[in-house]
């Protein structure tokens, strides 16, 4: 590879306008406002390293000290001891220096900036990283006091985003407690729009022990009132949705009971679940094999063989039995007394035998639904409903909390879906029109088609015939998808049937993949990610999936604008939003982007008039 090859990324003159942004926006401006964490931070973060070091050092010198004390007058050992002590001490000193140096570098290169529009964190000396997060992505800001840090009067500021990961998006660790509280407040103020304008001088913040909180807040005359309540409230700050939800939700409202799962059905469902049947089937085969072997063995070996086989079965069977019992127990325990209520803020679930759990699934938080029917449930017409729910509010442990209905007949499924599933969006769809061959498609009809259907009816596209031998002999007519105005419906499985429905407007990102065999067959796979879930379509025609890729990525980009703007914005958020829009419009990049997006920015600096804002917000804003 020649290094002299022209760099393809160099800005081209014929490139679209937005590509020709100056490479270095304003030199110098990038260096302002960076703050370092407390110098003791690496020592606290790397406490285990320090502990190991201390342990080695102290044990060594301790042993020697004790040895020399006990040895007392042993003059012959003295010079040797001294020499060893010197060498050992030298090594330890060197290690200490190295540690100090490493920690110093770690500290020196860890800087953060609470900027006008985003929070930034730079880390690393050899391997550097720089993270940027906009305030509108902020979900919560927490202060954390780990034991060791607390001893030194330090705290960590944890900034959470809805990034689908378990870790904090940004961790500013560690700062002096007062400083940490200060930073948290500034972040919250900026996020809520109470504080705008250039970043506060970091020196003032650092040295502001005597004037906590007032810096910057008073420095912006005529600004919106500070969100004092937000900043001082303990614990995570509620996100916009939570605040809205908080207004809507009435804690006393237990809702009306929609359905209960009877114990008998639950027991049956657990006994006929995949785990139980699978384990039983495996053991049936094993026993049959053992029996078969002992049959063919000659007479005298039969008994020994049987005994050995049984021993083997027992040895492998016991752990399996225990895990099976565990699975059965957890299935029964979780689903016991499962009650679904409807209330103003969504589905209220209550379940559990040893521990009753109450859970609310607000429909606005549901990213997608998943209905499953294991083969053994089909004679009984049972189904299971799972929902994908975005993170923070539902404790993050979505894994086992995603069940909206552990087992129920189709009618129950429809009743649950009626509340949590979004609008099916088939009104105005040609499929919904009554035709010569019968009445048109209803939302329930669509779900039914997705659950039981096969082939190309109801607008489903399935795996092409040419690709059926590639792992899809049984399911090729079944596995497929269909689109409505609002949903992407994916169905799969011939024996174990299931379907998923994702809202277009909840789609986060899309990936189109094609393996070597798929390329030969001219098919591809598509993965659609939502927060807390995903759907995969495998082996459909490449052209069809390319089109779907375009549709979903376009939906993902466009519908968020609508959804975010008119559903979850509080007056002050809308105000901030408009102001940010105006600010962005002032910049070179922003102007071009706005023009491209078709936004007209007024002279007075407010964005396009909020046409679709919910009632009552406009006059307050």
């Amino acid at each position, binding site marked *: *590879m*020649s290094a002299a090859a022209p*760099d*393809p*990324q*160099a800005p081209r003159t014929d490139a679209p306008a*937005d*590509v020709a*942004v100056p*490479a*270095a926006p304003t030199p110098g401006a990038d260096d302002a406002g960076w703050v370092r964490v407390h110098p003791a931070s690496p020592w606290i973060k790397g406490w285990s390293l320090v502990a190991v070091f201390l342990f080695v050092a102290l044990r060594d010198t301790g042993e020697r000290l004790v040895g020399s004390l006990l040895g007392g007058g042993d003059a012959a050992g003295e010079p040797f001891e001294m020499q060893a002590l010197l060498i050992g001490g030298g090594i330890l000193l060197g290690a200490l220096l190295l540690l100090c140096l490493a920690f110093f570098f770690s500290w020196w290169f860890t800087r953060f900036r609470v900027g006008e*529009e*985003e929070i930034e964190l730079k880390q690393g000396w*050899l*391997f*550097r*990283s*720089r*993270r*940027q997060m*906009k305030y509108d992505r902020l979900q919560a800001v927490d202060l954390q006091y780990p034991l060791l840090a607390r001893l030194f009067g330090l705290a960590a500021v944890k900034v959470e985003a809805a*990034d*689908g*990961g378990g870790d904090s*998006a*940004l961790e500013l660790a560690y700062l002096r407690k007062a400083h940490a509280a200060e930073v948290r407040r500034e972040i919250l103020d900026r996020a809520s729009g109470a504080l705008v304008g250039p970043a506060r001088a970091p020196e003032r913040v650092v040295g502001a022990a005597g004037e906590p909180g007032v810096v910057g807040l008073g420095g912006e005359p005529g600004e919106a009132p500070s969100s004092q309540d937000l900043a001082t409230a303990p614990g995570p700050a509620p996100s916009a949705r939570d605040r809205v939800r908080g207004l809507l939700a009435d804690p006393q409202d237990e809702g009306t009971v929609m359905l209960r799962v009877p114990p008998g059905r639950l027991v049956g469902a657990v006994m006929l679940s995949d785990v139980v049947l699978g384990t039983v089937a495996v053991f049936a085969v094993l026993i049959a094999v053992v029996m078969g072997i002992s049959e063919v063995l000659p007479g005298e070996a039969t008994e020994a063989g049987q005994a050995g086989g049984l021993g083997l079965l027992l040895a492998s069977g016991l752990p399996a039995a225990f895990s099976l019992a565990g699975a059965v127990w957890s299935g029964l325990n979780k689903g016991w007394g499962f009650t679904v209520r409807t209330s103003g803020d969504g589905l209220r679930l209550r379940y559990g035998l040893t521990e009753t759990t109450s859970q609310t699934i607000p429909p606005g938080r549901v990213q997608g639904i998943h209905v499953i029917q294991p083969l053994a449930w089909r004679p009984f017409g049972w189904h299971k409903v799972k929902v994908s729910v975005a*993170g923070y509010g539902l404790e993050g442990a979505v894994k086992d909390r995603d069940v909206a209905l552990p087992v129920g007949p189709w009618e129950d499924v429809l009743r649950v879906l009626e509340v949590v599933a979004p609008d099916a969006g088939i009104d105005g769809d040609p499929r919904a029109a009554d035709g010569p061959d019968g009445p048109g498609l209803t939302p329930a009809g669509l779900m039914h088609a997705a659950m039981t259907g096969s082939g190309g009816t109801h607008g489903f596209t399935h795996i092409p015939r040419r690709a059926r031998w590639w792992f899809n002999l049984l399911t090729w007519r079944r596995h497929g998808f269909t689109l409505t105005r609002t949903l992407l419906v994916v169905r799969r499985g011939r024996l174990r049937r299931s379907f998923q429905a994702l809202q277009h407007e909840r789609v*986060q*990102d*899309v*990936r*189109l*993949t*094609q393996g*070597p065999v798929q*390329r030969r067959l*001219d098919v591809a796979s598509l993965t659609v*990610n*939502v*927060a807390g879930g*995903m759907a995969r379509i495998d082996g459909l025609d*490449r052209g069809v999936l*390319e089109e779907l*890729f*375009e549709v979903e*990525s376009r939906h*993902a*980009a466009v519908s*968020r*604008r609508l959804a975010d*703007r008119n559903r979850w914005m509080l007056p002050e958020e809308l105000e901030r939003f408009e102001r*940010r*829009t105006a600010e*962005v*419009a002032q*910049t070179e990049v922003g102007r071009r*982007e706005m023009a491209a*997006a*078709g*936004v007209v920015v007024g002279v007075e600096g407010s964005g396009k008039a909020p046409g679709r804002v919910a009632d009552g917000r406009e006059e307050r804003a």
Partner: protein
Amino acid sequence: MPGIDLRGVEFTPVSPKLTRVKLIGAVIGGLIWLAVLSVPLVLRLTGVWSELWAWVAWGLPAIVLVWLLVDVVLVPRRVRALGFAEREDDVLWREGILVRSVKAVPYGRLQYVDVEDGPLLRSQGLQTLTLKTAGGDDLEMEGLTRETCDRLREVLMARGQARLAGL
């Protein structure tokens, strides 16, 4: 053979300098593996572990060498397969030779962006840009020049806002 081909999308390839970085990385990694897996051979040759089968002793380093060779041959093609495209509403990233994929991340979906580099990348003036969405499937864009990376970062942040505003 028909491959994924999105109409009207022109991908910008990543910097060819990434090839050198990846090659150096592959060689360093290969040498480390070679050193580790040559230990049995050395032991056998020095007579410490003479009962070890010859094919095992020679085979282990040979596997590493073949692996390294294949890697070195494939690296340039792999790098050439990488590319990005900025579209009106999203950024596209393309990768893979055997298993090819294209990923779209809408500007409005960005939660935060990471810019990373290491000594090798830095020596070639390259950076890695990671885009995080709430979907949990991060998009890692390798082999961007520092200028491209800075520009993309700025544009992505600005677009997130502008696209949101564009009702």
